[in-house]
C-alpha cells in the first residue's frame, strides 16, 4: 500500500508532520511566496501552543523578512484574535503557525489577508501559483525591515468584545464559570474576559506547554472533566473552547454537555434580541435557527460547509449573526470570524439578561435531536452514490448546494463527501433522538447498497 502523504496544501492552508513533510525549508518557501503575494508591509505572525511552532515560526519570519515584509510577532494567540488584529492594525496580512485539531506531531500554516479573513479560494490559487513557480521577490539587504514583537496584542480584541457587551447587566450577576481551554491559545484571553465580566471562575487545561489533556474537539465525550468540575464548583455553566479558540461548547449547571449546535442557537437568539437582521448558517446547522429567526421575523440563509462560505454570505446579506453548528459563532460587530471569546460573552449576556439557568434555556431547544455519523467511502464512489440518491429523492425538498440535503417538514438529513478524507458524513435532525438515528441508519444502508452495486 502506498504510504499516506502527510503534506496537505489546500485552500485552508498547509499542514504536515513536522520534520517528515513540513520542513523549515518548505515553510520558509511558503512564507516567501506569501510575502511576494501580499507585497511589502506589516505581516502579523502568530502561533498556537504546539512546541514545533518555535521552529516553524522562525522559518516564517525568515521568509517574510527576505521578501521585504515587516513581521509583527504577536506570539501565541487565539485564531479569531489574530484575524481581528490583522484588520485592526491595518496589516498586509498574517501567517499563523497552527494545525488546529491535528495530532501533536502535526503543524501547519494559515494565511490571512488584509481584511482579516482567511484568503478566499481564488486568492489561495494565486498565492499557490507563486509558491509553485518558485520566483519570489527577495529584496536587497538594505530593504530588509527588522520585525517587531508585540506583547499583550490580544487585549485590543478583548477591549472590543467588552465594549460591545452589556457589561453592566453581566457583572452584577457574578456568574460562576468553569472554563476548559483545551490547552489551546484561548487560555491567553478567556480568563481575562471572565474577570472583566465579573465572573467567579475556575480555568482548567490552560497549560500551554504543548501537551493536550484531551482531544481538542469540544464534543461531549471530551468534556468529562469539565462536567465534573462544573458540579464541584457549583458553577452556572461550563465553557469549552477548542484548541484554536474559534469554537465553543457549553456544559449546563448540572454538568450536562449541551451539544455544540446549541452554542450557535443561543448566540443567534441573543444577538437577535439586541438587533434584528438576517442570519447565515451552514447546511448542517440545527432547525432551531429557523425557529428562532421566525420568532424575530428575520430571514435565514444557508451556505455550503466551511467558515469562508458562511462569512462570505454574511457580508453579502448584511447578516447580524451567523455561524456553524459545530459551535462556531460569528458576530460581525466584533469581526466576521468564528470566535469562542465573542460567543462566551454572548452566552453570559444571555444568561444574565434572561435570569434563567442554562439547563432551563437549553430545555426550550431540547425538542431537536441532531445525530452525526461518518463511514469510509472513496471520494469517487461517494460522489456517484450521492448523484443516484438525488435522483431517488428528487420529489422531496432537496438542496445540492453541498452534497445532498433532504428536508422534510420536521426533519432533515445532510449527506456529503469530506474534502480531506475518504469518508461520507451524515447529519440528521428530527424531534426525536430515535428518529434521527433511524434516518441515519436507513441512509447509511441505502448508500452502502448503492456503493456495493457501483463498486
Amino acid at each position: 500500500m502506498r504510504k499516506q502523504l502527510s503534506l496537505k496544501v489546500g485552500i485552508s492552508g498547509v499542514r504536515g508532520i513536522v520534520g517528515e513533510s513540513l520542513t523549515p525549508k518548505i515553510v520558509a518557501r511558503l512564507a516567501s511566496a506569501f510575502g511576494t503575494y501580499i507585497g511589502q508591509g506589516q505581516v502579523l505572525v502568530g502561533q498556537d501552543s504546539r512546541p514545533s511552532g518555535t521552529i516553524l515560526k522562525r522559518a516564517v519570519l525568515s521568509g517574510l523578512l527576505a521578501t521585504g515584509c515587516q513581521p509583527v510577532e504577536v506570539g501565541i494567540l487565539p485564531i479569531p484574535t489574530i484575524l481581528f488584529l490583522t484588520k485592526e492594525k491595518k496589516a498586509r496580512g498574517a501567517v499563523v503557525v497552527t494545525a488546529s485539531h491535528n495530532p501533536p506531531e502535526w503543524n501547519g500554516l494559515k494565511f490571512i489577508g488584509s481584511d482579516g479573513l482567511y484568503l478566499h479560494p481564488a486568492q489561495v490559487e494565486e498565492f499557490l501559483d507563486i509558491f509553485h513557480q518558485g520566483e519570489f521577490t527577495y529584496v536587497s539587504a538594505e530593504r530588509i525591515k527588522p520585525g517587531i514583537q508585540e506583547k499583550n496584542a490580544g487585549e485590543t480584541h478583548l477591549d472590543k468584545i467588552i465594549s460591545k457587551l452589556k457589561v453592566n447587566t453581566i457583572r452584577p450577576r457574578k456568574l460562576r464559570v468553569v472554563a476548559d481551554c483545551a490547552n489551546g491559545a484561548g487560555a491567553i484571553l478567556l480568563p481575562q474576559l471572565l474577570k472583566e465580566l465579573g465572573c467567579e471562575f475556575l480555568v482548567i487545561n490552560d497549560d500551554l506547554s504543548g501537551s493536550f489533556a484531551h482531544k481538542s474537539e469540544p464534543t461531549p465525550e471530551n468534556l468529562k472533566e469539565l462536567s465534573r468540575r462544573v458540579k464541584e464548583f457549583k458553577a452556572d455553566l461550563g465553557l469549552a473552547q477548542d484548541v484554536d479558540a474559534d469554537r465553543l461548547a457549553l456544559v449546563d449547571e448540572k454538568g450536562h454537555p449541551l451539544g455544540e449546535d446549541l452554542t450557535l442557537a443561543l448566540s443567534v437568539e441573543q444577538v437577535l434580541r439586541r438587533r434584528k437582521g438576517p442570519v447565515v448558517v451552514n447546511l448542517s446547522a440545527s432547525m432551531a435557527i429557523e425557529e428562532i429567526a421566525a420568532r424575530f421575523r428575520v430571514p435565514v440563509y444557508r451556505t455550503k460547509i466551511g467558515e469562508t462560505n458562511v462569512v462570505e454570505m454574511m457580508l453579502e446579506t448584511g447578516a447580524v449573526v451567523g455561524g456553524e453548528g459545530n459551535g462556531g459563532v460569528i458576530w460581525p460587530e466584533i469581526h466576521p470570524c468564528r470566535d469562542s471569546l465573542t460567543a462566551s460573552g454572548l452566552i453570559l449576556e444571555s444568561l444574565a439578561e434572561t435570569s434563567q439557568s442554562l439547563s432551563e434555556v437549553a430545555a426550550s431547544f431540547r425538542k431537536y435531536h441532531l445525530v452525526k455519523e461518518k463511514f469510509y467511502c472513496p471520494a469517487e464512489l461517494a460522489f456517484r452514490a450521492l448523484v443516484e440518491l438525488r435522483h431517488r429523492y428528487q420529489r422531496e425538498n432537496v438542496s445540492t448546494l453541498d452534497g445532498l440535503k433532504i428536508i422534510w417538514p420536521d426533519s432533515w438529513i445532510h449527506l456529503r463527501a469530506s474534502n480531506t478524507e475518504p469518508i461520507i458524513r451524515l447529519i440528521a435532525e428530527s424531534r426525536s433522538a430515535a428518529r434521527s438515528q433511524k434516518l441515519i441508519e436507513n441512509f447509511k444502508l441505502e448508500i452502502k447498497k448503492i456503493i456495493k452495486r457501483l463498486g
Partner: protein
Amino acid sequence: MKLLKLNISGVRGIVGQTITPELIIDFASAFGLMLPPGMVLVGRDSRKSGLMIQEAVIAALLSTGHEVINLGICPTPIVQYLVKVHRAVGAIAITAGHNPGDWNALNFLNKEGTYLNEFQGLEFLDIYHLGKFSHQKLKRIPTVINELNPEEIYFSWLLNKIKKEEISRAKFKVVVDPCNGAGSRLVDKFFSWLGCELIAINNEPSGYFPHDPEPRPRNAGEVASLVRATGGNIGFLLNSDASRVSLVTENGETLSEEYTLPVVASHYLKQDPGPVVTSLSTSRMIDEVARKFQVPLIRTRVGQSALIQAMIQEQASMAGEGSGGVAFKNFQLAFDAFIIMGLILEMMALEQKKLSDLIRPLPRYHLVKDKIICPPHRLHSLVAECRKLYPRAEINSLDGLHLSLKDCWVHIRASNTEPLVRIIAESPSAVRAQLEVDKVVSFLNRLLG
C-alpha cells in the same frame, strides 16, 4: 552574474540573489546533521540581512534536534570564545566580515570555536551536496535561549589577561571606527575598562555601513583627522565582525592593514616566543620580526581557517595575515580585534613609545594589490596560466601561484570569498611592485578577452 562562494569554512553571497532563506536552511541543516547532539551558538554581525538569516539558521538547527543559544549581534571572536565556555558542539557566525553591506555569509565553527578545518569542511560539503536533509521528528520541546550581553563574560576573561593597570596609567586617548558593525558599543565598555579616553565614530550596530567595513587606509580618513584634531594616541578601524584591525598613528598616518601583524608580533613574541604562521600574501615585514625573535615563520594558504589549522599543527605562538586579523595561542584560536587592540595598547604602555616609534624598526616595503573579476569556473585555470609569465621564478603553488623574484614577490590567487583573481606584489621599490602587478593584470585581461 549571481555570486555565491562556497568554501570549506562557509558560504557567502549577495542577499536576495543567492543568500535566501531556502539556501540558508539547507546549509544550516547540513551543518546540524554533521554535529553531534547538543548546543549550538548563533551570532551575527550588525548587517540588516542578519536577522533574516538568523531566523532561518535557528529554524534549521532546531529541526536537526539541537538546542540553540542565540547571541544576537555579537562579534565573531566573542562567539568563538563562548563556544568553549558553553561547551557547545559548534556555532554559526553570520557575517561577511569585510565585504560590503549587500553581502552576508554563514561561517561554521567547530566545538573548539575555530573555523572548520579542511577535513571537517570537506565532510560538511559532502553532507550538503548529498542533499538529504531529512529531519528527525520532534522528540522534545525545541529550546532557544537568548543570551543578552554575551560580551560580559568574554571581557572579564580578556581583561584579566592584559596589563590593564599599565594601560590605564598611560591615560591613552583612542579613536575607534567600528563601522557600525558588531563591535559597535562594545568598544565603549572595552576602552572604559582599560581606562582610555574614547572617541568613537560609526558606533551604532545599525548595519548601515558608512564605508566598506574593511579596515584599510582608504577608509581611515575620518579616524586620521580625528586623531590629529583631538591629539589622540592611536586610531583603530574594525571590520563588521570585529575580527580585523588596521591602525592610525598619533600623527594621523593611516597605516596599511599589513602593519597590524608585525606591530603586535613584536610585542606578543616577547611573552610567548614561538613559531609564527602567516599567509603567502602577507608582507615580508613579519619575516624581519621573526628573525629578530629567532622564531620560525611558516607561510600557508590565505584565510583564517588555513592559518589556524597550521597554527595548531605547528604549535605556533601566533597566526595572522595582512588583512589585519591575528590570533594568539595564549588567548584563543581566533582572529580577534579586541585582543589585538589590547596588546598594542599594552605595548605602547610598557615600552612608553608612540605608535610611530614602534613601526620605525620595521622594514619599509611597498605592497601593491589589484584584482580582476573573473567567471568562477575560470578562476583557477587563469591563475595557472600566469606561470608562463615567470618561467624562471621560484614557485610555491600551495595557494594559487606564489613567485619569488629578486627583490620582489608576486602572489596570484583565486579569492576564497569572491569570484576574483587577486594579484599582490611586494618590493622595497614601489615602482617595481607596481610593474609586476600591471604585468600580470594586463596578461590576465588579454586571456579574458
